[in-house]
């Protein structure tokens, strides 16, 4: 699929932003640990950037995204503010959820980010809601819902596919099959190779894509988003990918070094960069500059997060009731 220069650059930039964000997040987390502070679970999106970026490239701010526990990438790709995200990780009052949410619960309805979720599969039925609302109101907004291959074993995901297909809701289910769910390999959870036939068994198109190839994801998502936007109903996309980091900061790595190395060889960022350079869309220098820019932005975000205040303890009851 053809992609124009500006869009390509923007996508690469977002991919780098996500990756650098995760590195900084990890750094902040470790800073906390060094001070004896434990800041909850932190799930790195590193390695999977092509999925969020390839899908969200087709989304408008008024389109909705439902994300998962591993949601920083989705949030950034959807346009959430990285300073506020970073502050959220530290539970600061300037955080994207005012410090009430933390890593797994980033919300920014202004850009369509309707939240991460601490419950695996928890976003899959919620995603039906904004999709339904679009149909109800007769507008062409679409909803994308990201979740892992582990979540694909949850019952509610199947109920949701059934309803999405039955009512032809404009929702795109994006299963990021990164081969592992915490310490459980996909082969211990799936009795099959692919998820697409599952979607088809609900009368919904199912597509499989190389989730480490941002252009492939971009092309696949284009079809799915177009279908949803034009009233053609839901799609399931299974993106085959890999996470570079352990499940979360507190669970030690349990996978073979060699598996990781193999997948690092398919790292979506260098792959996309080679393509951009090869196609003459960007030069090495431009890429290096972009990286410097991104890094500066993230360092600034980290500083912002560090310097922001924690919420005053007695504000704990704020936002319970509307």
């Amino acid at each position, binding site marked *: 699929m053809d992609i124009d220069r500006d869009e390509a650059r923007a996508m690469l930039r977002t991919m780098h932003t996500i990756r650098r964000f995760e590195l900084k997040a990890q750094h902040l987390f470790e800073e906390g640990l060094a001070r004896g502070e434990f800041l909850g679970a932190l799930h790195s999106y590193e390695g999977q950037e092509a999925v969020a970026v390839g899908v969200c490239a087709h989304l408008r701010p008024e389109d909705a995204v439902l994300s998962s526990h591993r949601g920083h990438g989705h949030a950034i790709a959807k346009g959430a503010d990285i300073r506020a995200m970073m502050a959220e990780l530290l539970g600061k009052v300037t955080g994207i959820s005012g410090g009430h949410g933390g890593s797994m619960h980033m*919300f920014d309805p202004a850009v369509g980010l*309707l*939240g991460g979720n601490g419950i695996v599969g928890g976003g899959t039925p*919620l995603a*039906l*809601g904004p999709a339904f609302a679009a149909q109800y109101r007769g507008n062409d907004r679409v909803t994308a819902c990201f979740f892992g291959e582990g979540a694909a074993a949850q019952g509610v995901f199947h109920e949701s596919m059934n*309803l999405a297909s039955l009512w032809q809701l404009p929702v795109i289910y994006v299963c990021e099959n990164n081969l592992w769910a915490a310490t459980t390999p996909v082969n211990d959870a799936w009795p099959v190779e692919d998820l697409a036939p599952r979607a088809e068994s609900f009368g919904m198109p199912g597509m499989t894509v190389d989730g480490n190839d941002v252009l492939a994801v971009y092309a696949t998502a284009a079809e799915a988003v177009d279908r949803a936007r034009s009233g053609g109903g839901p799609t399931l996309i299974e993106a085959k990918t890999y996470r570079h980091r352990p499940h979360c900061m507190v669970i030690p790595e349990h996978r073979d070094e060699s598996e990781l190395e193999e997948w690092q060889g398919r790292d979506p960022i260098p792959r996309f960069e080679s393509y951009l350079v090869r196609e003459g869309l960007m030069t090495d220098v431009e890429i290096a500059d972009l990286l410097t820019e991104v890094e500066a932005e993230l360092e600034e975000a980290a500083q912002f997060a560090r310097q922001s205040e924690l919420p005053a303890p007695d504000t704990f009851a704020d936002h319970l009731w509307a």
Partner: protein
Amino acid sequence: MRNVTYVRALNEAIAEEMERDDDVFLIGEDIADCGGVFGVTAGMLRRFGRRRVWQTPISEAAFTGLAVGAAMAGLRPVCEIMYVDFATTCMDQILNQAAKLRYMSGGQLTVPLVIRTQQGGGTCEAAQHSQNFEAIFAHVPGLKVAMPATPHDAKGLLKAAIRDDNPVIFLEHKLLYETKGEIPREEYVIPLGEADIKREGDQLTLVATSRMVLHALEAADRVAGEVSVEVIDPRTIVPFDLDTVAASVEKTGRLLIVQEAWQSGGFGSEIIRRIVDRCFDSLKAPPRVHGSEDVPMPFSPSLEARVLPNPDSIASAIREIVA
């Protein structure tokens, strides 16, 4: 005033709110073609069309989740779960999502959702169709919980629930649907969080919820010559109108709570906690809860009748406290 059934009152509340606000829609099992197995949504499909009345497959988790998500997106879903017992299949959507989304988002989202369902025993439907779960919903912060006992309260509270910007668990009772009562001819709304004194008295405060209000009133009648009972219906347990109950207990010095939920760990125990804290010096006798026996609901009519509180058993409980 008009004399209508509880089911009719609910039906009117829904119709009026749907008329008033196009964002209100209905979703649930068997709610369209037959108007719900208890008839609460009868006629809605004809009146408002398919766009606003969504009959679902048997997928409580998906359609409740859809309702939560639609509420986040600005609609005002009224979602029916046929029996409260089935809410066990969508507790994540209720307890982890609906109740928490506003808070977790730092107030950025609102979830103006009503989950209507009905609970209770007395129809020989056995253990999986007779439960009362209000204590579960009331324990988890972020959910309002309404339990109307009369047609009047049912209508006024349901309208308030639909207009409320928070998730409201609206608990009807299967044996109240056909009961009748007066409601105003003109439109009215009953704010969530205001108890109603259903009968005045000065020797014992009896707090009862849902169908137990009817039994409590009957029991109060029976003991009228012996004990003057004040019957209070909180109508919503979240928010709970502690002031009204406390004022009564300060007058009577005695408290009995009658709930259909199990004796142990019900909301009655929570009322005792609050009243004991607030009115300790006024209490002349230990406040008590009279609830259902702590067993799954047996099918057999002879056992079911024994397990549920009834006017007789309530009258005995009143006499015991006063004795």
